[in-house]
């Protein structure tokens, strides 16, 4: 069964803005799914429709087999949502936010206390249980929303940019935590602008742009397609012109920095040799953008061109 099924989902906002232009998507249970796309692509709109925050204009939504129109309550019970923006009561204590959430899902008070403790411990917020939520840091607020989303044991966890503004250490522990949630059988859908995060966590990826799904495939397949690796080279001496090197696409970022795309055949070694032949000495090398990032940039650039010419159907 699918954890999420969308059929020709469309949304036109009151201001006649078409945020979703017919989205079809099927996410099987147990998946760890990334939903990517540039700002304004429609990710949050899609998520808001699935979680009943926004009314769809047309199309069909099924959550764990429950149709959103016919069986909304059952569908809602399956979803845990971590929204993009803070939406808990800032004047309420941390523990109460999670306990009340359990109540809204029909969990009796005593049981709600037990679950709230478990969820808050999992995200390292148990110490803060009596703090008024306004006083939490940005990263803590995100974690509180994760704890809140999990208190009713959802089958589908949807996170809209959960790691925005979260420091590296916490981000990594959050990744570990989300992996463990997924291992226990919960389907996870995640949006993020950190492509490294999607590459690290997710097994399947969909890219949405201007309200349409433009890519929907397994992460491995997609990465295999991006053959070239990107490197940033730091030079010992300044250069004024971009060196021309056969088989390698090289760009000059500034006098001391080059960015090179390295195809698998030649390798980094080949690049160094040819640069040296032109008298360019490399002092340091950094791994450039991730493969997913390259793929993403290329794709968005292409789709931008298409939209620009008005050729998009």
């Amino acid at each position, binding site marked *: 069964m699918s954890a999420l099924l969308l059929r020709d989902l469309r949304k036109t906002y009151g201001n006649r803005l078409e945020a979703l232009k017919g989205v079809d998507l099927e996410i099987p249970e147990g998946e760890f799914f990334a939903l990517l796309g540039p700002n304004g692509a429609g990710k949050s709109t899609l998520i808001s429709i699935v979680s009943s925050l926004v*009314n769809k204009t047309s199309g069909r939504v099924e959550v764990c087999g429950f149709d959103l129109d016919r069986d909304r309550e059952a569908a*809602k019970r399956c979803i845990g*949502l971590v*929204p993009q923006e803070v939406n*808990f009561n800032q004047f309420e204590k941390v523990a109460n936010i999670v306990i*009340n*959430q359990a109540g*809204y*899902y*029909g969990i009796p008070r005593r049981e709600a206390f037990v679950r709230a403790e478990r969820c808050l411990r999992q995200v390292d917020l148990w110490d803060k249980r009596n703090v008024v939520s306004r006083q939490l840091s940005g990263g803590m607020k995100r974690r509180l929303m994760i704890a809140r989303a999990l208190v009713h044991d959802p089958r589908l966890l949807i996170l809209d940019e959960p790691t925005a503004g979260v420091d590296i250490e916490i981000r990594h522990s959050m990744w570990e935590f989300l992996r463990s949630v997924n291992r226990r059988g919960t389907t996870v859908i995640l949006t993020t602008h950190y492509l490294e995060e999607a590459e690290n966590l997710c097994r399947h990826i969909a890219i949405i742009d201007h309200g349409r799904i433009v890519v929907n495939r397994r992460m491995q397949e997609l990465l295999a397609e991006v053959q070239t690796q990107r490197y940033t080279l730091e030079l010992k001496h300044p250069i004024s012109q971009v060196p021309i090197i056969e088989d390698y696409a090289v760009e000059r970022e500034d006098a001391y920095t080059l960015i090179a795309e390295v195809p698998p055949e030649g390798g980094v070694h080949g690049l160094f040799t040819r640069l040296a032949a032109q008298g360019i000495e490399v002092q340091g090398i950094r791994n450039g953008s991730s493969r997913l990032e390259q793929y993403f940039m290329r794709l968005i650039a292409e789709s931008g061109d298409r939209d620009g010419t008005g050729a998009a159907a």
Partner: protein
Amino acid sequence: MRKRGWSGTGQWIALQTILFKEISRFFRIWPQTILPAAVTNALYLLIFGALMGRRIGPIHGIAYLDYIVPGIALMSVITNAYSNVVSSFYSTKFQRHIEELITAPVSEWAVLAGYVGGGVVRGLVVGAVVVATAGFFTQLQVAHAGVLLAMGTLTAALFALAGFINAVYANSFDDISIVPNFVLTPLVYLGGVFYSIELLPSWWRTVSMGNPILYMVNAFRYGFVGVSDVRLDVAFALIGGLIVLLLTWAYVLLRRGTGIKS
């Protein structure tokens, strides 16, 4: 339409959760929610009742102070029930934690009952505080406790519902104070809180009969002192009808997601 699951324990627990949250909210901020009413009404009782009342003389054979206490208490019930719901639900919307309730499988009835219930409890608590304060100024009697409680509760429910509807339509903090200041307050003051309409010129008396609050004040007063300017059955029918009307209105708004969903 009867919603599936409304009778279920899940909805009942959700309702209790909202109600408990609402009640703890106003108790937590009692200096803003309970104290002002107690102070203002003590002043009313002191000035109109104890000081001027001696000169005004009895109405329908009832000492002026005793005559106005029920009206003043009901005035507090009305304003507190209304303002509790309008400000709580508006800030729920404004701060966006209404989204917690929309994403959760809570029925519209449970949301409505939870918020309105919170307003009713606040109205009755403040009403009770006012009556207790009045105990310092006069020896109150209760002629018909049943009428008193029923009319107090129904009035609280009606104005809690009105506050809810106001909050749904409100887009700014101004919007939540317009109705209380410019509609509610005049209707309450002209609703026979401080006088019997028999003292009014006949044209004004006729106009007053169109003010629904007059019926509530009089029925409530009847519960204390046993006299009323209006018929009780008319008063109860009127308030029952108004409650059904506003309940339907509020439910439809919630169901449609007016002011909440895009």
